[in-house]
């Protein structure tokens, strides 16, 4: 019994990247089963359009939840499960940069998904507005269901999880690569994750902003998406600014996996890797300027549409390049058709079909017929359920032996592959021919000629589903009965294959070093000290080569000092706080639309207690440990990991505010009349608060300076001053708000008021975080003054205050002057 308890406790408190990777994958598979079952249900209805198997609202719920879960709670998370497990291994790191933050990302992801599942059981039932949640159908005027509220809360919660994840991966990839692992040598999967998080960092804040505005509409009665000034098009712009990069967010990790797997089983490096990286970078940038192609028939100006039509055509070129590079990697290789390779190869023709049909959609004139039809469904399912999912299966099968130490059955995998290839083509090819059939309808009495094609598609769906039943059997069989794999059963290249299967908690028995000519050495820390890292990299130093293994070999080397030290360090790393924080948010969010204040308070209390516990752990330095040596390279030389993390986070915050400011500009330009801020608001109060806020940042700067020079008294005084100013700002704001409310200028009074309260409210929430951080710094300073060695904490809080100030310099003129 106690072993079961400790087993459960381990999974609830783990902060190890490999454990969290497994949690992600298992959870994502659960959501896949949910969303896949929903798909089968509505495919049955579509094969029998006269029937009432799944009519009306239930049908709409099924297609909506299927789409949301597959994209946001299955495909991306399973890719990030693999990334959690293998990015640190591929680059020779011991963990992700911020393990507890990583755990928090996972728990927020899990509970946000459960929020969506729970929504089936609340009054009104689950969300039914289509995964794109178009306005104004998404407002409570048209969709009063409580489940809809829960879905939007789930999306906002997931956005938070993803933003934390981006920070973590950014810092890990930028700062924690093994010595010698130059950018050039970073494996494609890790590269693809880097590009993916760059897109996530900018795209998800737009989704979060849209979600927050929608929640205000639904719960507090604003009219951002109901009014003519905002309305349908405001949602369209915010949603698709997220939505299009999201497509590449789902695709990139899969292309990265394909590249690494195909290299492994041909023995050839990815063809023209540097050009592919340039192509990825180009696609990342272009992905932000194609979103209007989802709005070709909304009545946008023709010139704008033409520009977006060209950018959309251009974005196909990087992907053509990637496809050609994958194909040319086969050239002069020795192709070994193992199960991962077979799935990887099957992904390529699917990508050619899905990609070629994508070019059609770029033409405005053609899109008029495609939009809202099964042509589009077929196109993106060839990419998502085809390329992206096949690559994920290839990735799972490729790395399964590493994660479990066991082999999967090749025979079952081949049966699965045959079923999957037949299934997916029978499922989606007929949908290209259903070019006139609208999406998301459950009856089509007026077009009996669509029935046969739909029935073929449904048969395909069941064959495709059968392939996943085989996959599930294969995974369970492999897990329980698979033959031992050894450490490198595929004879694969890369760092992850130079450690045990499954890897020890600290990943490598020694420090991995990549030499200039691309050999990987696992060097004992002592040797590294004696010989010097640089000489090991250039190959001048004589090191006893360890860790290089033959196919099916075993990792022979064991560095006692390291295995011991890190093994212990990891044993203490568990923390309940991330799980409790996410659970608290879950409870509060479930209670919010239901209006259950007691439950809401309980959830909030749990969340705040978890944050307090977290801060306390930090304060006591419970998790501090020495950093292993890592590779420093442009553009991150001399910048420590907290700074990289902070700036990454700030970039995300910038896009959140950018999206809100974008909403302001959109609404204002479409409003017939707008009172200039100077006539509406008290400029004196605004100016006063501006001075207060800027002085607070200055005070933090002074605190940092005094910590550096060791003046404890002034350090404490500056911190107290900063804290007082932060509080003063909050009180002035509260005074201002209550005065306005008393004058009848409440939240829902005018469009301008809605924007004013929303933007200044979002800003005030950030000031509150600054106040809490300053309070923490002050308490810490009174107990243990900051010295030169840890003054950077104050610098980071100062940078944060500075950013809060910069946001204010936009908000102040927007509402108080012009």
């Amino acid at each position, binding site marked *: 019994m106690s072993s079961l308890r400790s087993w459960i406790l381990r999974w609830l408190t783990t902060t190890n990247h490999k454990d969290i990777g497994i949690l992600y994958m298992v959870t994502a598979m659960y959501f896949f089963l949910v969303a896949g079952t929903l798909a089968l249900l509505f495919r049955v209805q579509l094969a029998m359009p006269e029937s009432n198997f799944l009519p009306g609202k239930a049908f709409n719920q099924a297609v909506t939840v299927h789409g949301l879960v597959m994209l946001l709670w299955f495909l991306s998370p399973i890719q990030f499960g693999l990334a959690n497990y293998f990015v640190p291994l591929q680059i020779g790191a011991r963990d992700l940069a911020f393990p507890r933050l990583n755990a928090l990302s996972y728990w927020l992801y899990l509970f946000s998904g459960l929020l969506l599942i729970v929504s089936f059981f609340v009054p009104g039932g689950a969300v039914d507005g289509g995964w794109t949640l178009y306005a104004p159908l998404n407002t409570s005027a*048209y969709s009063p269901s409580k489940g809809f509220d829960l879905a939007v809360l789930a999306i906002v919660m997931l956005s938070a999880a993803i933003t934390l994840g981006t920070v973590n991966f950014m810092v890990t990839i930028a700062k924690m690569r093994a010595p010698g692992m130059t950018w050039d040598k970073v494996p494609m999967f890790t590269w693809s994750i880097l590009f993916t998080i760059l897109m996530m960092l900018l795209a998800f804040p737009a989704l979060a902003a849209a979600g927050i505005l929608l929640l205000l509409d639904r719960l507090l009665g604003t009219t951002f998406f109901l009014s*003519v000034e905002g309305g349908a098009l405001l949602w369209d712009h915010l949603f698709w600014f997220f939505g299009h990069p999201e497509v590449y967010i789902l695709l990139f990790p899969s292309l990265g996996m394909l590249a690494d797997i195909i290299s492994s089983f041909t023995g050839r490096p990815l063809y023209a*890797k540097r050009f592919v990286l340039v192509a990825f970078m180009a696609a990342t940038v272009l992905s932000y300027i194609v979103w209007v192609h989802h709005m070709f*028939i*909304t009545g946008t100006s023709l010139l704008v549409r*033409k520009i977006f039509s060209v950018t959309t055509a251009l974005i196909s070129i990087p992907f053509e390049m990637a496809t050609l590079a994958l194909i040319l990697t086969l050239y002069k290789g020795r192709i070994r058709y193992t199960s991962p390779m077979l799935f990887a190869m099957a992904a390529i023709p699917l990508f050619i079909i899905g990609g070629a049909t994508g*070019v059609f959609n770029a*033409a405005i004139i053609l899109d008029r017929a495609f939009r809202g039809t099964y042509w589009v469904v077929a196109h993106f399912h060839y990419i998502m359920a085809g390329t992206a999912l096949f690559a994920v299966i290839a990735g799972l099968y490729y790395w399964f032996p590493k994660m479990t130490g066991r082999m999967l059955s090749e025979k079952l995998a081949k049966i699965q592959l045959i079923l999957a290839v037949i299934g997916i083509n029978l499922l989606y090819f007929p949908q290209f021919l259903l070019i006139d059939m609208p999406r*998301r309808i459950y009856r089509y009495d007026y077009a009996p000629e669509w029935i046969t094609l739909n029935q073929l598609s449904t048969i395909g769906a069941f064959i495709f589903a059968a392939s996943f039943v085989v996959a599930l059997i294969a995974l369970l069989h492999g897990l329980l009965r698979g033959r031992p794999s050894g450490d490198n059963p595929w004879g694969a290249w890369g*760092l992850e294959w130079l450690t045990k299967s499954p890897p020890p908690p600290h990943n490598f028995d020694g420090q991995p070093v990549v030499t200039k000519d691309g050999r990987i050495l696992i060097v004992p820390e002592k040797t590294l000290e004696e010989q010097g890292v640089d000489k090991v990299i250039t190959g001048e130093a004589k090191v006893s080569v360890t860790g290089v293994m033959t196919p099916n070999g075993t990792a022979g080397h064991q560095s006692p000092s390291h295995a011991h030290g890190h093994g212990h360090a990891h044993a203490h790393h568990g923390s309940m706080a991330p799980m409790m924080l996410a659970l608290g948010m879950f409870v509060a969010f479930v209670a919010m639309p239901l209006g259950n204040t007691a439950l809401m308070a309980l959830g909030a209390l749990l969340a705040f207690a978890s944050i307090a516990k977290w801060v306390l752990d930090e304060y006591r330095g419970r998790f501090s440990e020495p950093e292993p040596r890592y590779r420093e390279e442009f553009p991150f030389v001399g910048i420590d990991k907290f700074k990289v993390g902070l700036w990454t986070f700030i970039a995300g915050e910038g896009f959140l505010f950018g999206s809100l400011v974008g909403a302001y500009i959109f609404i204002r330009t479409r409003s017939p009349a707008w009172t200039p801020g100077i006539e509406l608001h008290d400029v004196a109060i605004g100016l006063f608060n501006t001075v207060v806020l800027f002085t607070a940042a200055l005070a933090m700067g002074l605190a940092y300076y005094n910590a550096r020079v060791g003046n404890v008294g002034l350090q404490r005084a500056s911190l107290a001053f900063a804290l007082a100013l932060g509080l003063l700002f909050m009180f002035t704001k509260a005074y201002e708000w209550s005065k306005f409310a008393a004058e009848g200028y409440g939240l829902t009074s005018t469009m301008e008021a809605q924007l004013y309260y929303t933007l200044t409210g979002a800003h005030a929430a950030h000031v509150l975080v600054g106040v809490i951080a300053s309070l923490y710094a002050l308490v810490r300073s009174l107990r243990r003054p900051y010295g030169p060695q840890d003054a950077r904490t104050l610098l980071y809080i100062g940078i944060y205050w500075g950013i809060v100030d910069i946001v204010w310099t936009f908000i102040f003129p927007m509402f108080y002057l012009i």
Partner: protein
Amino acid sequence: MALQITPPDELWWLTFNQFLIGALVLGTFVSLVFAYFAIRYWEKRVKPNEAEVVLGPGKVAPGTSKIGWTRYTLVVTGIIVTLLILATFPRTDYVEASPPETDLVIWVTAFQFGWEFEYPNGKKVVNTLVLPTDTVVEFKVVSRDVFHAFGIPEIKGAKIDAIPGILNSLWVKTPSDPGELNVVCYELCGVGHSLMVGKIKVVSPEEFQAFLQSS
């Protein structure tokens, strides 16, 4: 009656066929290269001296920058794709602008869950529209409540969003033979979305005039 006007759906098919030929030619070429390599370099077929295996256990793949003849393929496909898009622009202009000559303007108001049509003489009908054959019709489309999309599945490219607060327009040329068309909502608009189906009865001009004058 404007018989000389090219109907938008004719241009749609022309454009679609051009894209289809482009996609089939390029797609087939790339697929053949892929299939050839996949078989040619299979370990059971490839001769030992033909394979140049450079990656293996204990190594990291280098950043290769050779690009060889792919650059030409890229330039060629890039040019083809861009030209295909640019070539559609004159047609797009034609289809998107108001029709060269309009015979009839119909105001369409989408609502949950149906269609209201209004003729120039003020006559209003719900869900069943009567139109004359061989006529250029411009639809002025608005929505009374949520986001809908007005579309006629039988006429390619005859689709435009119906959004509250926004006036969109679309023109078509009705078929030359009498018959029946459907009006379908192409954007999920609520529980009755699937049933939001209207009819267009295409009749002879004489019958149409008679219908228009009836009360």
